[in-house]
């Protein structure tokens, strides 16, 4: 099946700076593809090249197998939901949605019918005559999507559209966006710096950094099997130590950190030998917390320490544990199953994690 969108060796330079460097990817029909990266990584540049507002320095963009480089933005079969939505404040909701249809020269009756249908689909059938500034944040969001979807584009581009919403509404819109995508059965390309938006909604995610794709895969791939230290650090939280590898035996490594902590870890098949300097990443939620040492003896790494700080944040609560041997601080997720409700600063605890959960990368690979 031809992918809906394909980018081949896409590069964009502004003067001396390279904003996007040799990016290639393809998005199969009907899927939700996200580009995740910190601000300034070049994701908006990619989006604007696909939409046609920027011309790539080199490389090609194909939509349904055809190059669109020579096609002006107003003729491309892609539409874009802008960061601040960019609804037309001088028109009411129905005229906003009908704008593209009017420009396409459809008869008035068809426009009215199609606008009615799409309003029905986004669950706001009564708002056609309302002014844009009378809508709530979530309604504006849906109108902006409807305004694009009524044109039945091959690809819908979304440029951080949830950024301006408050937290609760953002959580709801994530689910709603995913449902709308399934309902319209259109390919969505979504860019964001918010990992939870990307992880929740996407079929495929590309993590981008400094103009390059670091890794492309499903949300689980990125979280469980990061391929680069950047992805390991950017997707989810991590404890990170730098050190030197003391022993390498098959897949199992032993790394001595700069502060003297010995950690057993894995390189997930990457070539790492003894004596090499390396970075090791352990997720706070992969670390077991216990009051008794015996519960953790089966794990590859276990140590004793005391609680230096409790960072309570509901489900995302953390405990900072200072290791007795090396005095290094380790961030550990606080299990919310009840047994640690009375944990206090200064308490002695045991922590442990398996070597499988300690991901090791050669230093300087970032």
């Amino acid at each position, binding site marked *: 099946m031809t992918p809906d969108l394909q980018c081949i060796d896409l590069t964009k330079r502004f003067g001396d700076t390279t904003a996007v460097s040799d990016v290639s990817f393809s998005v199969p029909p009907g899927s939700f593809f996200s580009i995740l990266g910190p601000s300034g990584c070049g994701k908006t540049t990619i989006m604007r090249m696909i939409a046609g507002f920027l011309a790539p320095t080199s490389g090609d963009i194909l939509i349904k197998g055809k190059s669109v480089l020579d096609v002006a933005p107003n003729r491309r079969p892609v539409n874009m939901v*802008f960061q601040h939505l960019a609804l037309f404040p001088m028109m009411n909701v129905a005229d906003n949605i009908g704008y593209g249809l009017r*420009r396409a020269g459809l008869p008035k009756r068809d426009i009215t019918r199609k606008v009615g249908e799409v309003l029905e689909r986004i669950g706001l059938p009564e708002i056609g005559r309302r002014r844009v500034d009378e809508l709530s944040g979530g309604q504006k969001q849906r109108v902006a999507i409807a305004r694009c979807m009524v044109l039945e584009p091959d690809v819908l581009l979304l440029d951080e559209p949830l950024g301006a919403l408050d937290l609760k509404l953002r959580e709801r819109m994530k689910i709603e966006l995913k449902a709308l995508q399934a309902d319209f059965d259109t390919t969505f390309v979504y860019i964001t710096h918010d990992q939870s938006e990307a992880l929740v909604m996407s079929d495929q995610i590309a993590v981008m950094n400094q103009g390059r794709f670091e890794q492309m895969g499903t949300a689980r791939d990125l979280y469980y099997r990061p391929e680069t230290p950047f992805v390991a650090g950017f997707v989810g939280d991590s404890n990170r130590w730098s050190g030197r590898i003391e022993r390498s035996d098959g897949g199992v490594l032993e790394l001595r950190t700069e502060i003297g902590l010995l950690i057993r870890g894995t390189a997930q098949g990457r070539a790492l030998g003894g004596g090499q300097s390396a970075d090791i990443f352990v997720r706070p939620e992969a670390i077991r917390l216990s009051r008794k040492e015996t519960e953790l003896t089966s794990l590859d790494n276990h140590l004793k320490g005391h609680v230096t700080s409790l960072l309570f944040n509901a489900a995302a609560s953390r405990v900072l544990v200072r290791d007795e041997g090396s005095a290094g601080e380790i961030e550990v997720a606080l299990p919310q199953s009840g047994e640690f409700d009375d944990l206090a600063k200064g308490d002695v605890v045991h922590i442990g994690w398996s070597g499988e959960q300690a991901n090791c990368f050669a230093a300087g690979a970032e």
Partner: protein
Amino acid sequence: MRDGTRLGFILLLTPLLLWLSLLIIIPHIDMFLVSLRERVGVGKYEISPANYLTFLQEPLYLWTFMRTAVMSVLATLITLIVGFPVAYYIAKMAKGRIQSLLFLLCLVPFWVSELVRTFGWMILLRETGVISSLLQYLGLIHGPVEMLYNDAAIMIGLVYTSMLFMVVPLISTLGSLDDAVIEAGYDLGGSGPSILWEIIIPHAMPGIVSGCIVVFMLSLGNYLTPTMLGGKDSLWFTELIYSQFIVRFNWELGAAFGFVLLILSSFIVWATLRLTGQTLEKTMG
């Protein structure tokens, strides 16, 4: 505390009230009373609409009045057509230093007085002026050409004088239009003209209307430019008012002329607001 704020409020309001009452309300009431006087003998006056009837019955007055109104509307439209692209370029296309520089260039002509500016145009346009000499030098014309003292010269002068007052409100309304809205228009299939017509102009409407009102008022009430650039056939209504007051010493008729002009400008401003669906608060706010 309450008395203190009230006193502050009164003190702040006083200059405005003084200005309004001393310079606008009282003179206008007095003018209106003067315009209703008819001189029946030496030092003897009666209240009558005679001055207004004179205005209506004398073709030259009526004709000059209509001409001034039509020319002012025309000057306003030309200023809008010339000023809009300039304002759009400054507000949307130019960036950073270039933007401030261009804005400054619009302002520069206003550093010299209107009189000097108008003399500038006379130097360019007169029979022995720069343009005429240049055309002769190039061999395009044989013998000097007079470009002053006609309606076109007045129009050039009026547009030039009013330009800034059109460009400034346009820049501020166009500047408030999010670039993404224009891009969204292109993205949804809009072409240049349709985006201009459906998105940019409706957004800029308050600026267009406020610029037009100011330019129209300035043109209608302009005395210097029409007098200096227009000839004997290019009468402006303000010249008639001047001659009644100063030359003929007929204050009664002059005051009536002034009032007719005030009614005309108020009517046209009201009609423009009604036609464009704007309110005074929106355009001046």
